[in-house]
């Protein structure tokens, strides 16, 4: 009874926030629910099959793809887009369903596994991101591995080419290890399992302690991050009895098209070295806007901009903006690439002629503001 009442109040709070305060109202219900009923996640998970998706990059789009697959099997609830902390999870679970596909933040995954007891957890990748909050990649990986070990009923599916993902897969009682033929990892110099210098042979690693991306349960061709995530969604869906869907890389990239006074803009989310490097490969045109912010979810420090090679931007028309526009302007300057610095996105996009196609690579908060507007 108390749970039902808490849900009612949480929903009321959500609609107040949405209709009166004009906020998105996505996380408020979950926040209120957890405050009123701290065990809500475990209670609400009991009656359904939970599937979690976590990783540094690609959580939102992979969750969406997986929802499409699972919805053929039964009713599904899912997290509000990008809302992946415990409150987002709680919000998703307030609605009744047979399945719930939840996008879960890397650091919140342990709690969600303990409380929601998922049937399956899909681990996409783990690379340096928001180090002010994550502190160390290895710290997050260790938490994943401990959670995997402590959840023998749960099937862990993941990309074994990422040694940090493999650490969790190797710790799990039930795992389905996927490989895309191996891939270099920016943070892969040290074995996350035993701490020695990790032995790489081209794109494959094989440590003396046994950690390896070889001999996986499934082997696919190599491809873009979007393709890998879609494939992992398909594999997960199939293991749960669903049918694979066609892979549409474009729709899976976190990219959105908008028009600003006749200027066509393709907006893409870029938030860490791995996602920037991936996004830079898609910059085919000459006109580019880069937006760098430094709020909590963006990462409050910008040192990581120096981990990225921006060489592909050389010779293009580049305008930068955002709270830390100067940081990226100077980083590019040192790489020999000159840009124009503007105060905000409106003035950045106005620098381009009507009819031009502009690639906009945007920090997390900037991307969401532009998409919502």
């Amino acid at each position: 009874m108390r749970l039902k009442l808490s849900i009612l109040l949480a929903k009321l709070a959500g609609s107040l926030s949405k209709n009166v305060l004009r906020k998105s109202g996505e996380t408020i219900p979950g926040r209120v629910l957890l405050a009123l009923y701290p065990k809500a996640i475990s209670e609400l998970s009991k009656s359904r099959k939970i599937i979690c998706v976590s990783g540094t990059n690609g959580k939102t789009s992979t969750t969406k793809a997986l929802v499409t697959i699972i919805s053929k099997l039964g009713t599904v609830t899912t997290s509000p887009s990008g809302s992946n902390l415990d409150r987002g999870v709680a919000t998703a679970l307030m609605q009744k369903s047979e399945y719930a596909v939840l996008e879960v933040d890397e650091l919140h995954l342990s709690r969600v596994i303990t409380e929601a007891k998922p049937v399956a957890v899909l681990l996409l990748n783990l690379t340096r991101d928001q180090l002010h909050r994550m502190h160390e990649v290895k710290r997050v990986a260790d938490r994943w591995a401990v959670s995997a070990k402590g959840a023998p009923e749960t099937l862990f599916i993941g990309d074994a080419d990422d040694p940090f993902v493999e650490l969790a897969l190797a710790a799990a009682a039930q795992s389905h290890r996927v490989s895309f033929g191996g891939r270099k990892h920016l943070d892969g110099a040290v074995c996350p399992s035993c701490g020695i210098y990790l032995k790489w042979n081209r794109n494959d690693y094989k440590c003396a302690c046994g950690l390896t991306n070889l001999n996986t349960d499934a082997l696919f061709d190599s491809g873009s991050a979007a393709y890998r995530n879609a494939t992992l969604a398909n594999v997960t869906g199939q293991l749960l009895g669903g049918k694979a869907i066609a892979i549409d890389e474009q729709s899976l990239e976190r990219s959105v098209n908008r028009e600003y006074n006749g200027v066509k803009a393709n907006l893409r989310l870029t938030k860490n070295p791995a996602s920037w490097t991936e996004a830079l490969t898609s910059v085919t045109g000459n006109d580019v806007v880069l937006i760098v912010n430094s709020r909590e979810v963006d990462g409050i420090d910008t040192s990581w901009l120096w981990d990225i090679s921006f060489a592909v931007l050389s010779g293009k028309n580049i305008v930068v903006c955002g709270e830390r526009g100067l940081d990226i302007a100077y980083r590019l300057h040192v790489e020999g690439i000159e840009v124009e610095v503007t105060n905000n996105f409106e003035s950045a996009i106005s620098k381009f002629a009507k009819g031009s196609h502009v690639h906009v690579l945007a920090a997390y908060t900037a991307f969401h503001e532009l998409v919502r507007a």
Partner: protein
Amino acid sequence: MSQIRIVRIHNELLGTYGDQGNAEVLAFRAKFHGITTTIIDVGYNDPLPTNGDIYLLGGAEDAAQLLSLEALQRDDNLNILHFAIERGAVILAVCAGFQIIGNKFWANGQEVDGLGLLDVISVPGDKRLVGDIKTISTVLGFELTGFENHMGRTILGSGAEAFGKVVTGNGNGDSKFDGAVLGNIFGTYMHGPILARNPEFADLLLTRATGRKYAQITDPLALKYASWRRKVIK
């Protein structure tokens, strides 16, 4: 000397916090002075070059820090560093790298002997120190800004002098001082990377490495960036 060799030590291990940019900024600033540079990336299994002019170490996670230490203690590497110091070469060591060149530090819950190039010891603190940091450098006499993200508390011995006096942030953990300096050996907790955020410090390192004074560089963007960060970090 119109050519210098910048040695980036174990970037694959000590490159977690963006400090590899220090080498790029040095090379970039050097160009203004008419100095040609070579950046030499030293891998875990490579010997250190004997003729480097500036040796750089960056921040790392614990396991990587221990591997880097082990590699630097291997073969002739430590002698090469001692000889480099005698020659007047510059060492800039950030965060985990700073701890490595000290006498002792902690990693993965154990105390280990460092390289002993700087008279400091580092011990783990009770909470991680994360955020913007501003100091006034005792050596340079001007403000430096950066970003710190570490558990370590560093205690200076009698043979080392603090690198900076903390204005904002924590530095060595006491909120009073950051880093340590001895001759041309610099240790600090400041990421950013520190030389990107404080290009005048890069110039000083180039002067120290070559023994030559250089004219002031006119690079408006560098100046704008550095002074803006100094202004916003109160």
